[in-house]
């Protein structure tokens, strides 16, 4: 990184200006898969925050000892270990959600945000800023996940967190849930809409 960032920037930049999903376009695959309902999206977001924060700290702590020839392997081992621990914890304490998320917790290992942050930040920074960076990017990811899941569950199933929010009178009047919202393509379109809104607000992000 060229300019030195303050802790505040390290933490808050990934929320919007440098969001991993909508600006760096990383981790799109899980956004498509786990956002049909709000609850798995929240759990997935929390899992990514936890894995990202801890792997950032661990890699940052051992960054000076890692032989450069195997640094990607070392990062993968750390991430994979943490992901398995998170997945085991979910199976023990949130079984229903872990069944819904099925393989996607395991696939956090291949989430590009993780490797991106480890390579770009944790390998070159001290543990505390690395921790902030991990949490910040995790929250940035989780925010997008929850926004997408909010619209998909609301319009696709008429519920939020499993509670019915579209009143019965709407259905009586002929309102129908949009089944399209449940299908993966709509996740891409919702993400695209978020990117559109965000780039209209932050003009400097628009490509020429």
């Amino acid at each position, binding site marked *: 990184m060229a300019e030195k960032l303050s802790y505040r920037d390290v933490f808050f930049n990934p929320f919007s200006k440098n969001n991993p999903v909508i600006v760096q376009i990383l981790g799109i695959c899980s956004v498509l898969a786990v956002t*049909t309902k709000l609850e798995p999206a929240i759990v997935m977001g929390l899992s990514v925050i936890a894995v990202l924060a801890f792997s950032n700290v661990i890699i940052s702590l051992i960054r000076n*000892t*890692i*032989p*450069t*020839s*195997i640094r990607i*392997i*070392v990062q993968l*081992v*750390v991430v*994979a*270990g943490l992901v*398995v*621990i998170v997945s*085991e*914890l979910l*199976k*023990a*304490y949130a*079984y229903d959600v872990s*069944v819904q998320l*099925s*393989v996607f917790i395991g696939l956090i290992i291949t989430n590009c945000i993780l490797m991106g942050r480890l390579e770009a930040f944790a390998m070159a920074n001290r543990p505390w800023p690395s921790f902030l960076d991990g949490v910040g990017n995790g929250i940035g990811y989780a925010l997008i996940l929850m926004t997408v899941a909010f619209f998909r569950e609301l319009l696709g199933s008429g519920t939020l967190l499993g509670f019915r929010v579209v009143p019965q009178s709407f259905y009586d009047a002929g309102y129908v849930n949009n*089944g399209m919202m*449940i*299908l993966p393509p709509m996740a891409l379109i919702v993400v695209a809409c978020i990117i559109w809104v965000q780039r209209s607000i932050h003009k400097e992000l628009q490509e020429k």
Partner: protein
Amino acid sequence: MKINKESNIYTIIYIVVLVVLVGSALAYTSISLKDKQQENMAVDKMRQILASIHVVPDKGAVISDFNRYITDSYVVNNRGERVDGDAFGINVAAQSKLPSPSRHLPVYEATMPDGARKYILPVYGAGLWGPIWGYVALDADGSTIFGAYFAHQGETPGLGAEIEKPAFSDQFVGKHIYGGDHLVPVSVVKKGQKPVGGGEYVDGISGGTITSKGVGAMLSNCLLPYNNFLKPIHEKSLR
């Protein structure tokens, strides 16, 4: 002394130490959470068994409801004789791949609030992307289907995954697996068609053909070995 970080020895020692550390952390997590996880899996299995007799317990009440409704469980072989074993502990997935004579077949007996007895039989098979499984509940006559529950691991949402919806599984209610003397499992066929060999049938899912066929194959593979167990029950009910 300055350590050469790029030397092969350092690299090898580094990765061995790292892997051992991560490995022991994982082993520790796995062992300390095992009881809790198995309990969750058992509760989930109970919930699925209850779903086949149309009982949907509250989250905390699964075990007590299971003990209330499921009054007996035992294991039979394909000659219909009872054998030793714990019905709940049997791995249906592994059993469904064995030849019929060597299978251990679990049976759960449920007693409904009105005193009616139901037989619940587990089934397991393959869908399009992964395993599918379920529970079929039969009335006391050993032939009429009282309820069915199906689940899947990763069938296509909106297509094959529809087998877990009541809209699909409720079609089985009231079907008979004994038409005459023979056990003919309910077939799953394309809408508007009829099974070649006769017998009762339900409509498959449009766009979920392979999963639908998988359900049919699963029922025939897993229900036929129960013939010698169910036949006396069925014949007794006719008398």
